[in-house]
C-alpha cells in the first residue's frame, strides 16, 4: 500500500489544470493530466422505470446518447473525451444490466472513434448499493458480490476506467450533516469511510489489474456534496460544508494508497486535495454541472481539472439537440479555451487559473477552500499527520482557521450566522478525543443508524 506523508506539489507554479505530476495513459493513447484538458461527459436516463421489460429500450437510449455525443465531438474537432456511466441502483443489483449498458456505450465509442479518429474512453461507476436494512455486511454478502460482479463484468466489456462513489459511513454522515455535528462527520469520514475505502479499493484494484483497466478514483459525493446541496439551500452553514469537503479528501485519498491511478472522479471537489498530495490527474465539474445542481464553485472548480465534467444530465430534448449532446458541446468549448491559454505558455495558464479562482472564492467558503494556494497549504498540513483521524482533525482545524483569517482579511464574505458556526465548529474539534479508539467508543452509542458489526467494529 502506498503511503503519502507530503504533497507531490511544492510550488503553485506547477499546480494547474491539465497537468498532473503522475498522468494516466489510457489504452487508446489518451494522456490525462499530460497537458491537454479533455471533456468528461456524464448522462442519465429520462424519467422511466428500470426493469427487465424496459431494458431493451434503455439500451437504445444509451446508444442514442453515445451516438449524439460522438457526432458532436466530430463536428467540434474534439481530440478526445471520456464518457462516464454511473449505473443506477437496479443496474448494480442486476449486474448484467449494468454490463449491457457498458457494452452498448463502449461499442458506440469504438465505432465512432475509429470512424472519425478521435480518442474516446469509457469510465464505469457502479452505483454503491450497500445501504438499507437488508445489507448483510459492508464487505461480504449479496450487495458486495453484485457490486464486484458489476465492476468485473464492465471491465471485461468495454470500460477503460473503474470508479465509484462509495458510501461507507454515509448512514452516520447523513445525520452528522443534518445536525452539523463535526465530531460525527469526522468519525464517519475518517474512521468508517477510511476503513471501507481500504477494503473496497483493494478489491477494485485487483479487478483492474486482472482486466487491464485503470482503477481511477472514488469521490465523497454522498458526504461532501450532500453537505454542499444543503448549504446551498441555506439549510446548513456553508462553512460546515467547506470543512466537510476538506476532511473528505482523507478518505478519497485511500483509493490512491490502494493502487488507483486516477483520474479522480468528478463530483468530488476534494479531488484537488487528492491531486496536491498524490499528483494524480482529476476530473472536476463546476459551472458545467448547473444542469444537475447549483454550484457555488462554478469557475474555481476548473483551476486544477485534468478532465472537465458536467456531473450528469438527463436525456431530454432541448432546442439545441438532446441534453447530453448540448452539455458536451459546452464542455468542449470550455476545454478549447483553457487549452488555448495553456498553449500560449504556463504564465497564461496560471493567469487564467487565478482569474477562475479569484472570481469565485470571495463569495463562498466552499469556493475558498478550492483555491489552489489554499489547497496546497491545507494539504501540506493535513498530510503531515500519521493517522487518518489526526489528518481529518488537523484538516478541519486548519480550514476553520483559514476561513476565519480570510474573513478578517476581507478576502472572504461571511455573515454573522456563518461566523458563529465557525466558532462552534472550532470549539467542537478542539474538544474531540485524542485517539480514533476513543472517538469510536464515544460515537458508536450516539449513532442510531450505525450497525457496528457491518464494519467489524464489534
Amino acid at each position, binding site marked *: 500500500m502506498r503511503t503519502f506523508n507530503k504533497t507531490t506539489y511544492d510550488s503553485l507554479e506547477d499546480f494547474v489544470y491539465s497537468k498532473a505530476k503522475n498522468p494516466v495513459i489510457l489504452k487508446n493513447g489518451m494522456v490525462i493530466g499530460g497537458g491537454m484538458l479533455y471533456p468528461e461527459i456524464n448522462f442519465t436516463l429520462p*424519467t422511466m422505470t428500470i426493469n427487465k421489460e424496459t431494458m431493451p429500450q434503455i439500451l437504445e437510449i444509451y446508444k442514442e446518447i453515445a451516438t449524439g455525443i460522438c457526432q458532436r465531438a466530430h463536428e467540434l474537432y474534439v481530440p478526445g473525451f471520456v464518457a462516464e456511466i454511473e449505473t443506477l*441502483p437496479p443496474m448494480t443489483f442486476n449486474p448484467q444490466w449494468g454490463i449491457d449498458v457498458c457494452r452498448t456505450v463502449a461499442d458506440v465509442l469504438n465505432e465512432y472513434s475509429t470512424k472519425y479518429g478521435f480518442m474516446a474512453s469509457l469510465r464505469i461507476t457502479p452505483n454503491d448499493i450497500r445501504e438499507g436494512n437488508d445489507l448483510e455486511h459492508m464487505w461480504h454478502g449479496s450487495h458486495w458480490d453484485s457490486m464486484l460482479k458489476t465492476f468485473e463484468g464492465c471491465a471485461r466489456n468495454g470500460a477503460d476506467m473503474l470508479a465509484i462513489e462509495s458510501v461507507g459511513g454515509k448512514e452516520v454522515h447523513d445525520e452528522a450533516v443534518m445536525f452539523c455535528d463535526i465530531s460525527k462527520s469526522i468519525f464517519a469520514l475518517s474512521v468508517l469511510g477510511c476503513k471501507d475505502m481500504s477494503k473496497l479499493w483493494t478489491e477494485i484494484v485487483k479487478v483492474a489489474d486482472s482486466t487491464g483497466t485503470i482503477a481511477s478514483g472514488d469521490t465523497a459525493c454522498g458526504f461532501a456534496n450532500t453537505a454542499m446541496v*444543503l448549504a446551498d439551500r441555506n439549510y*446548513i452553514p456553508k462553512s460546515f460544508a467547506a470543512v466537510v469537503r476538506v476532511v473528505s479528501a482523507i478518505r478519497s485519498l485511500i483509493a490512491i494508497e490502494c493502487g488507483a491511478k486516477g483520474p479522480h472522479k468528478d463530483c468530488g471537489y476534494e479531488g484537488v486535495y487528492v491531486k496536491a498530495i498524490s499528483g494524480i490527474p482529476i476530473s472536476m465539474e463546476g459551472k458545467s454541472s448547473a444542469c444537475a445542481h447549483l454550484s457555488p464553485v462554478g469557475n474555481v472548480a476548473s483551476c486544477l481539472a485534468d478532465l472537465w465534467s458536467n456531473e450528469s444530465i438527463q436525456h431530454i430534448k432541448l432546442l439545441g439537440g438532446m441534453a447530453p449532446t448540448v452539455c458536451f458541446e459546452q464542455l468542449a468549448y470550455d476545454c478549447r479555451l483553457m487549452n488555448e491559454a495553456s498553449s500560449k505558455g504556463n504564465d497564461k495558464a496560471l493567469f487564467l487559473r487565478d482569474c477562475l479562482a479569484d472570481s469565485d472564492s470571495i463569495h463562498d467558503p466552499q469556493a475558498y477552500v478550492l483555491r489552489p494556494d489554499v489547497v496546497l497549504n491545507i494539504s501540506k498540513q493535513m498530510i503531515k499527520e500519521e493517522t487518518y483521524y489526526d489528518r481529518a482533525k488537523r484538516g478541519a482545524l486548519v480550514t476553520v482557521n483559514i476561513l476565519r483569517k480570510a474573513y478578517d482579511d476581507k478576502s472572504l464574505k461571511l455573515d454573522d450566522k456563518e461566523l458563529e458556526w465557525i466558532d462552534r465548529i472550532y470549539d467542537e474539534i478542539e474538544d474531540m478525543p485524542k485517539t480514533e479508539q476513543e472517538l469510536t467508543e464515544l460515537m458508536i452509542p450516539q449513532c442510531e443508524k450505525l450497525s457496528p458489526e457491518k464494519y467489524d467494529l464489534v
Partner: protein
Amino acid sequence: MSNLQLISESVQKGRAKETVSYVSEAIKEGTSASDILNNGLLDGMSKLGIKFKNNEVYVPDVLVAARALTKGLEELKPLMISEDIKPIGKVVLGTVKGDLHDIGKNLVKMMLIGNGFEVIDLGVDVSAESFVNAVKKNEPDIVALSALLTTTMSQQGEIVKALTANGLREKVKVMVGGAPVTQAFCDEIGADAYAADAATSAEIAKIFAIHK
C-alpha cells in the same frame, strides 16, 4: 415570563431538559393540555419555523428544537390523552421503492412534527404494498412520498394506483416531493399536492388538515 412563554422559548433554543421541566410545572399549575401544546410547545416551533423561513437559523437549530418539542410532548402525553387532545393530523411518510435517499424525507418529517402532526415514518425503499398496509393500519390523513431519482419517481404514481386499487385513495391526501418531481408530474400521476421543500410540505399539510 409565563410558563407557556418559557416552554416556547426553551423549545426555540432546543433545550430539551428545560422544556420538560416547564411542561411539568405548567401541568402542576393546572394549565390545560391544549394550552401547553398550542401556546407553549407548538408556539415555540412555529416561531422558530418563521426564523428558518427567513434564513435566520439553520436546520440543526430546528432539529434540536424538534427534539425538545418531542421530549415536551412525551411529558404532556398522559394529560393529552385524558383531555382527548389529538394531533392536528396524521401522516404516513416514506421514500419510494428503489430509492435510498432519506435526508429530504427526514427534513419533511421534522417540519411536520414541528407543526403538530403525528408522523409514521416508513423509512426508505418502501414498496407500494407497504404504503397500502400502513394506510390500512394507521388511517392517516396524508400520505407523503419522497423520490430523488428520475428512475424512481414513477413509483409515486404506482403508489397512487395501489391506493386506488385498494379503495383507499379517497380517504387520504397524497403529497409528493423530491428533486426531479414537478407540479406537472404530480398532476400526471393524480397526487393531490407537490411540495418543493420541507417547509412548504408542512404548510400544505396544515391546509389539508384544516379542511379535512
